[in-house]
């Protein structure tokens, strides 16, 4: 009897110790999450309903005043219209070319086709180099080296550069985004593809399944959860994607390269942007969240319901 009680006590003590260990382990990340995620976001939601009073030096509630300004800007500002249009174009182009090509290249690498190792390294290279350095190299290539070559080949041409010319700059930014983001997409898809059970693939081959059929009927359905995740993350990022405009142009981003992400970011990083700007930006962020969240949820549901099944 005493022995059992003793054993129970030791067990309980161990449980307490485990609990203390667990609490200590989780306390800091939890506190960090509470402060830097919950509190910050909650505060920014409140900020959307306030305005900074320069006479008293404090924020005061102004109801939906900031939201009214956001909707007014959405209705009247040409720059906001351009930003919305560009954000959607960036998303669609990213989906078609970024995701589409990433899937094909991943499959190519997964199938260990000719030069797959070379492609794997080359495609991932832009992702490991600092983005600022990549932007710098890319900029010098498109606006110094290429124009020099083009103007030499086509004598009389006065091409300034892909990022400098009005008609090519937005397309060039999109190209860079896809190219620079390609590696991480490929890495994720290749990782997911490598997780496919070899016996399934072998069975398919025995049934006479070709390369394309294998991709459509086996590979893609098997990696569909990864695809869904990336697809949804991209939708959620429509309102925040800056297509690296700031890295290329600083604050002087040409109007035809504005996206919603940059539109909001610009007012935050401008040196003199002050306390009066934040509530408006918070309201705009909140409106974006309200618009994008249901889209994300609906798309997710649709993908799960109608997407290819691994069964």
């Amino acid at each position, binding site marked *: 009897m005493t022995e059992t009680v003793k054993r129970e006590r030791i067990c309980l003590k161990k449980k307490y110790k485990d609990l203390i260990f667990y609490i200590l382990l989780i306390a800091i990340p939890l506190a960090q999450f509470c402060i830097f995620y919950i509190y910050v976001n909650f505060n920014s939601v409140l900020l959307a309903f306030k305005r900074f009073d320069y006479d008293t030096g404090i924020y005061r509630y102004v109801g939906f005043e900031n939201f009214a300004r956001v909707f007014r800007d959405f209705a009247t500002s*040409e720059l906001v219209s351009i930003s919305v249009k560009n954000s959607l174009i960036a998303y669609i182009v990213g989906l078609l070319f970024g995701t589409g090509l990433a899937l094909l290249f991943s499959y190519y690498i997964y199938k260990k086709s000719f030069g797959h190792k070379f492609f794997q390294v080359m495609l991932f290279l832009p992702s490991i180099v600092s983005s600022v350095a990549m932007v710098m190299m890319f*900029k010098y290539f498109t606006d110094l080296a290429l124009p020099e070559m083009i103007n030499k080949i086509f004598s009389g041409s006065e091409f300034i550069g892909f990022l*400098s010319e009005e008609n090519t700059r937005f397309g060039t930014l999109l190209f860079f985004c896809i190219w620079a983001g390609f590696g991480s997409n490929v890495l994720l898809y290749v990782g997911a593809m490598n997780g496919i059970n070899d016996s399934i693939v072998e069975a398919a081959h025995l049934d006479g399944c070709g390369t394309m059929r294998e991709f459509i009927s086996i590979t893609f359905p098997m990696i569909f959860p990864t695809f869904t995740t990336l697809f949804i993350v991209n939708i959620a990022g429509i309102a925040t994607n800056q297509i690296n405009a700031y890295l290329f142009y600083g604050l002087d981003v*040409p109007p035809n390269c504005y996206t919603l992400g940059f539109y909001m970011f610009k007012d935050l990083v*401008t*040196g*003199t942007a*002050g306390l009066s700007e934040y509530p408006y930006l918070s309201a705009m962020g909140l409106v974006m969240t309200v618009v994008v969240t249901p889209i994300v949820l609906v798309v997710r549901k649709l993908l799960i319901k109608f997407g290819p099944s691994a069964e």
Partner: protein
Amino acid sequence: MKAKRLLAVLMCCLTACTMVACGNNRGDDEDPIDPTKTQLYVSNYDGGFGDEWLRALADRFEELHKDDRLEEGKTGIQVRLVNAKKQGNQILDEMLTSTAEVFFTEGLPYRDGALQDYFLDITDAVTTPLTEYGETDSIESKMTVQQQNWFKVNGRYYAIPHYEGYYGMFYDIDTFDTRNLFMTDAGTFTNYAGRGKGADGVAGTYDDGLPVNMTQFFKLLDEMKRQGMAAIGWPGANPRYMSDMLVNYSAAYEGYAQTMLNYTFNGPAENLITLNGSTVVEDAEALPINESNGYELRRQAGKYYALEFAERIIDGNYYSSGSFNQTSDYLDSQTKYLTSAFENNGAKEIGILIDGTWWENEASSIFESMAKRYPGSGKGERRFGIMPFPMPDGEESRSQSSAVVEHLMSAAFINKNIADYKKDLAIDFIRFCATDESLIEFTKITSAPKAFQYDLTDELSELTYFGQQVWSFKQNSKVVYKFSDTPLYYMNTNYFQNNNWESGIQTVPSVALEEGMSSEDYFTGMYSTAKTSWANLIQ
């Protein structure tokens, strides 16, 4: 396996190479802390004016306080520099956790910082005469009324002005001399010795031998073109340089009072125009401006003529190849401008540089490398001058009332979180940097004026030629600081400081004009855009 290892090493090298681009902050981080002294940490915006001035200031301050005992077992002061190219909001965001105790920075949202209680109240230090340094003036009395009104928040001072800089057009006097690009009073080309009196009609001033109106100016550009030069250059990656230069063109045309209206919104606007096609129609009467109709100032004639000036430069293809290229930043632009006079590598020599008055100091390293290759091309060895803005024909006299807009909005202040025992020391440092000796020293080192009222007499000859020109320019101009204690202004500081040229979706005139927009459309668009935006600003 070997190939993999080799690849891994190559990747590491590549990653390391990208880190090189980060550079270092050239602060005192690598110098040892002297444990026998008390440290005062000073943050410096290490931009165009560098930190040489601060090191010189720190040396004198340390010497002055070599016997001070602020901490047990420590004698003397060690000023430690924390160089960072941080300004504005970046500084405020990091104030609470920053180790720096005294700050010198630019683009400060000052009122926001003061209201958030980030800065130490230095009212007494600002208003008390600097008698300990043998002066009778206080820091406050060295400031203009406009500065006093801005820096005084609810009757208290939390910062003082620092330096000032203006965007403009700069030229190489020796190039103009050898190429006979100066003008006589009759408007013909000549060399330095034969140059005329310039727009002010007074010999010996900075505008001697330079164009007095648009016709003469574009005649000069045509002559440069004829001689195979690229007349004007500015950094394509920093189109703001051109935009801010145009702000100063407008200021030169409008004069001090009319330019100030853009910040105070209180007074009669005298030069408002509307366009009928390309015909300028002046308002018959001055329009009283207040906070509710401030957008009317977008119709100021000076703004239109500034746009027209830019349009003629662009349409006439007078600019250098880098002026619209994204790879040409301000350093690249300075390099091309400086080297083009010596190197014949296919690029055209650039006649006029659009930049700020800090450019000569900023280009110190370029001068240094050039001096090694071309004797006589080092800093201070070449003579650079300031090109006055050419007024529209028939309105040459406008340049006499010249005003210039200060663009840097710099300030010095003390971190509110400074330890109690160091407060007096930091305050003393702020006072010390505003003494005449320190102000003059700054100007001697950087060739730039501090944003205070002080005199250079014997010391003028110690400045570089360009420094003397800048000083002469300052003396002949009334400086407009881009701030005001008007509620409309300080509640929308960001808008009024960064949207000088907003016209529809365009914010950079040079880019819009290069892409085919006309100066008339741009000007008309500025008015309608401002009128629409005003509802948001006056809430």
